[in-house]
């Protein structure tokens, strides 16, 4: 087998891998919804005010809890996820305190309370939306608990998790939702 042929085969295989694993247009991928059980690690994280927060306590709430993974300087999908959060708060109006929104940093190196506070202010977040950071070890534990571990923030993907307060089960939404779809999912877990 000559070198040119070998090179062609290698190029074909490489191109196949690149193309198969390439991202797709979001409108062709309706979001994927599953119901999951997750066990939270007993970790303490830090919120946008610098307060130490026990994640398990924050999540074990009698109201719906929505979790996503974002970082403060993200340019593409985090702003879209965050727009979904603030939109939900706006749609709920005075009832926005009925839901606990939690964004967990996947860039704990850079996301200090100061960075996170500015981020929430930029989105005009109301009370009830907390942005949490912490040690890389603890952040990794949380990502693993939600089956959302990524070794590097640049490999992240759009994921939203909604906890049903009645049975403690989670709705796992892979992909981006419209605001009406998001509100609908929130209502399905008893959110009002």
């Amino acid at each position: 087998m000559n070198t040119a042929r070998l090179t062609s085969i290698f190029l074909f295989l490489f191109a196949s891998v690149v193309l198969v694993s390439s991202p797709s247009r979001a409108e062709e991928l309706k979001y994927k919804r599953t119901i999951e059980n997750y066990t939270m690690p007993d970790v303490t994280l830090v919120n946008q005010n610098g307060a130490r927060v026990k994640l398990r306590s924050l999540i074990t709430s009698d109201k719906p809890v929505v979790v996503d993974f974002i970082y403060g300087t993200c340019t593409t999908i985090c702003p879209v996820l965050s727009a979904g959060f603030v939109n939900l708060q706006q749609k709920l109006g005075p009832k926005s305190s009925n839901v606990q929104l939690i964004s967990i940093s996947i860039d704990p190196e850079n996301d200090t309370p100061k960075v996170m506070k500015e981020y929430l202010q930029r989105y005009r977040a109301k009370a009830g939306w907390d942005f949490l950071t912490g040690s890389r070890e603890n952040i990794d534990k949380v990502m693993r608990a939600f089956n959302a571990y990524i070794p590097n923030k640049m490999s992240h993907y759009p994921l939203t998790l909604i906890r049903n307060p009645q049975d403690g089960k989670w709705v796992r939404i892979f992909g981006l939702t419209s605001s009406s779809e998001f509100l609908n999912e929130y209502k399905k877990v008893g959110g009002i």
Partner: protein
Amino acid sequence: MSNRTNNCIVQSLKRLLPGVILCCSLFALSATVIEDVHAIDLSPSEAFLQGERIYRDGVLPSGEPMQAVIRGDVDVPGTSFSCVSCHLRSGLGSIEGGVVTPPTNGRTLFQPYKVQYKQVKVDQKFYPAILQRPTYTDASLATALREGITPSGQVMNPVMPRYYLDDKEMALLIAYLKTLSDQPAPGVTETEIKFATVITDDVPSAQAEAMLAPLEEYVRHKNSMINLFKKEKRSARMAATMVTSGELMYKKLTLSRWMLKGPPETWRSQLEEYYRQEPVFALLGGISNSDWKPIHDFSEANHLPCLFPQTDYPVISTTDWYTLYHSKGIYQEGEAAARFLNEKIAALQGRNVLQIVRNSRQGQALSTGFQETWRDLGFAAPVTVTLGEKEVLSKEQLQKLLYANLPAAILVWDGAESLAVLESLVTSSERPAITIVSASYLGDKIWSIPEQERDFTFMTYPYRLPQREESFKRFIEPFMKKANSSAATEVISKKSYIATQMLTQGLMDLRGNYYRDNLFDVIGMMRDQELPLYTRLSFGPGQRYASKGCYMVQLDKGAKPALINKSDWVIH
């Protein structure tokens, strides 16, 4: 009725009658935009600045934020969803979080867009994430920005905001896009990329050589590969298959030394003269024992990237763009001390913190880092005692300070003289629970701290611990040998090594698009790195300090003590 109101009505009705309204709006917008592109009643420079503001900040000429809708029905402010968010400062786009953002610079917009892999066209069906399209016109570009529809009628990804822009705003934005990354940066030709490295005359020659040697060895090696590729066709084919930017294989790198002499206030004019004589693509490495600010300001003014200069005194900024530092330098150690104390807040019991600061550049940088972070954490300013250049703090003076302030922690931002303060603390009845010193400022003296002082003395240590750094030795050793690195200059050589590694990746990721803003755009999209010296280097859009960490350590017992880690790399 204003154009903005018209647009809003069109947007609302479209949701009810998509087909009919889409056709009407397309027709109407096509007509109006073409006229208005020629009717911007502003000077070219004003029009550019306003267009740039829309693109970068999402702010309209009126000062109001641009408005947009994403995912069909999610209203968002343009300030959070400005064009630069995804298409980046250079306009060359990104791939992030599974979303492909195509280029929007004028050069790309106004020609047909095809999907290519190494100059080979790829069929759209195999790569649906990128929409192939014919060339844009002003009118079809306005339609894309307002309706999310390409000239070939394809609907864009719903995360692409659909902007409510009136005709004048649209014309300003389009005019800006036409200038965006339009001309390749100076310092790059078909065959060559020019770099320079800045060295100030306060740096001893051994240190300057330690910084230079790895860079020059890197350039020599890269250029020698060109000859190899020309002689050995098989190697060239293999390399072309492996690298993402084939054109880079045959580009020669040059590295000039820009030596700055005299007082820092004269550096700017010297730099301008060097730059006038040789407009380089970027500054690489560099070293100074003074504040980097004059060189930083020169880079900002000339939009000239400066990658990984070696300085303990970088400019601390969240908005400046053109210098990427290894870390915040000495300042970062003060920052780590504040975060560490915040973590141990229970031990403070509401008591104050005492800072003893040598009036030196190092002492001031440590103190500023601590005070600014301490303030941001919500604490009152510490009690600060500044020592003159040769002033000695006696045991009695220290005792008085402790008695008067009863501090919960004492920070000693001083060099070897810190050891005398530590010694005085051993027998002090008012000794605070925590004492912090800087390992960088103490230098080799850290190993002289007596055993009875080690239990209460914490040190800021901005690098990977020596015992863990050993594992990097094997793969960096050949490189260090070629660079003639010695133990005394090891840190400097390693910092230069980091610069070469990141440059290699950055140049590859440019993929032939030699625009200076693009260099920072691609670095901002890089994965976190584990390289020698720092536990982790991380990047992100707009992030300009690659290492964000600093350990708090203590000395182990014994005659040959090791450093014991007492904190995370990044303390929260």
